[in-house]
């Protein structure tokens, strides 16, 4: 074979350096791609590794879900009743949602449907900055500013309570809900709006009778993700809720949350002790609940995407 023919035949052999580089990268990005599954599996495995040891030994479901006696450090009779922690988390998250759902949805409708041009861009940037404030700063605001504000306004002895943590948490969850809800409104095809406008509807009628019903699933998903965010927030509930084990009678009572309990106690437990493993059991509970919330939100959102694809010409 003459050299030119040889060179030509090499051109047709794809297994050059480029081919091997391509193979190697394919493997590398595949590993990177599946890493997210690896990590979420790893999170559950490592929490379960510490927590399940407790679940199968000391754990008593009746006590865990039915008793408010969280006394893990008692030398004689340690009890692990998480009821007050669950109620604490639920009451703070509940109040946070009462605060943030109407405001977030209102803001999403205003930004998505009413605001135009520069106003709209400015509001979107502000919402994004609102979402960027670190949770420890929110916690500090609850601990210092909101605390004295509540004491002054409502004339109560302590300002670190459900009301404080709920309002702060509501402000914190609002930007996420606003952003996702606005995306859901944006996903409604303009043709729907134009058709309704052609029938003589005002813009509010278009929103109320056409856009919101069409975006309903996305709005529900936005609320769900907001609930998940509030449920799992740690620093705010640690600093602003008062952190005392208590079944609240009113919003002015201090409570303690699941996340805050882990944050406050993990540093003071001996590795491998019952108390240490009980905190990981709380972690399993938190993981499972947020997993369920995210799964539900994702299922709802996927439903929308499917419908959108079918509707496309």
């Amino acid at each position: 074979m003459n050299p030119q023919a040889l060179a030509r035949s090499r051109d047709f052999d794809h297994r050059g350096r480029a081919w091997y580089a391509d193979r190697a990268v394919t493997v590398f990005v595949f590993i990177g791609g599946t890493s997210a599954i690896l990590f979420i599996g790893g999170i559950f495995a490592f929490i379960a590794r510490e927590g399940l040891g407790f679940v199968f030994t000391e754990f008593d479901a009746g006590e865990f879900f039915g008793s408010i006696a969280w006394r893990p450090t008692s030398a004689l009779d340690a009890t692990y009743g998480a009821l007050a922690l669950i109620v604490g988390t639920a009451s703070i998250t509940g109040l946070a949602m009462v605060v943030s759902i109407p405001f977030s949805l209102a803001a999403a409708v205003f930004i998505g449907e009413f605001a135009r041009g520069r106003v709209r861009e400015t509001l979107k940037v502000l919402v994004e900055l609102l979402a960027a404030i670190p949770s420890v700063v929110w916690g500090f605001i609850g601990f210092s500013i909101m605390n004295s504000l509540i004491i002054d306004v409502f004339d109560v002895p302590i300002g670190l309570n459900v009301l404080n943590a709920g309002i702060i948490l509501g402000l914190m969850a609002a930007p996420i809900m606003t952003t996702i809800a606005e995306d859901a409104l944006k996903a409604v095809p303009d043709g729907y709006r134009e058709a309704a406008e052609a029938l003589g509807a005002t813009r509010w009628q278009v929103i109320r009778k056409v856009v919101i019903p069409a975006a309903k699933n996305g709005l529900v998903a936005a609320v769900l993700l907001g609930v998940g965010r509030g449920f799992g927030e740690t620093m705010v509930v640690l600093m602003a809720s008062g952190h005392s084990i208590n079944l609240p009678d009113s919003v002015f009572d201090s409570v303690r949350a699941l996340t805050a309990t882990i944050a406050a106690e993990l540093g003071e437990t001996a590795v491998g002790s019952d108390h240490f493993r009980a905190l990981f059991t709380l972690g399993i509970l938190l993981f499972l609940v947020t997993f369920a919330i995210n799964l539900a939100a994702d299922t709802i959102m996927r439903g929308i995407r499917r419908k959108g694809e079918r509707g496309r010409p």
Partner: protein
Amino acid sequence: MTGTAAPLFAGTSLNSRDRKVEWLVRVLLGLMTALLILPVVIIMALLVVEGGPVISWEFLTTRPVDGMTAGGILPALVGTVWLVVVALIASVPVGVAAAVYLSEYAPDNWLTRAINLAIINLAGVPSIVHALFGVGAFVLFFRFGTSILAASLTLAVMTLPVVIVSTRESLQAVPRAFREACWNMGATRWQTIRRIVLPNALSGILTGIILEVSRTSGETAPIMFTGAAFFLPFLPQGVLDQTMAMSLHLFVIATQVPDAPEALPFGVALVLISMVLAMNALSIAFRVYVRGRKKW
């Protein structure tokens, strides 16, 4: 059906009642939006008023003294930089690889759906659960101890979704025709990605990384038990040392140091929030600039 059907929308542009309702709704929604944003403005103003006087060059460059009731925040600032840099080194390659896979390779099958679900959950799992994972995996199982390495890896896992999602979006924004043109020249998939897709998506990827820096520097719960210390008189020398961090420092002097002067935590909060918001503003400005320059 005979006659006229009841119209769905009674309003026309001449119907004054509906116009009034519309105006009312508009004002109401606008007010609610303002009420949502107003607290941020007030909070920022309060932080500046209360914390501003504390901040000086000396505050930023000296160590805390007298049981953290005086002095500066240097070890916390340096520590946060360490944590962020190590977290970025760990998460950016993995995150970009994951985004390249999802955008350029992944078929629409169960595995891709599982990856997407895993990403959503990584972002949604409470930060304190990430902390438990960090303790269980990095501190205890891999025996890194409480160190910058363990804390940064915990942060890296936690903020991985930020990198993946923003990178994937910017990769998908590169028109498909660019890729097809390159393939037609005989380039392999990887050559196409390296020479065409990644350069065109670079600015979007950088925007995502800046956002990740902002997220990482503000997180507290994940580093509390994995590597951040309440107080250390010296600066970290390597990734196996513990370190102070801005976010935890704010928590500590606000809640654990009762005799700290009242303005001190405000000063720390102001520095922390300035860092975070500056990063966010940078990423927003960058995004607007890039959008304005786009050629397609």
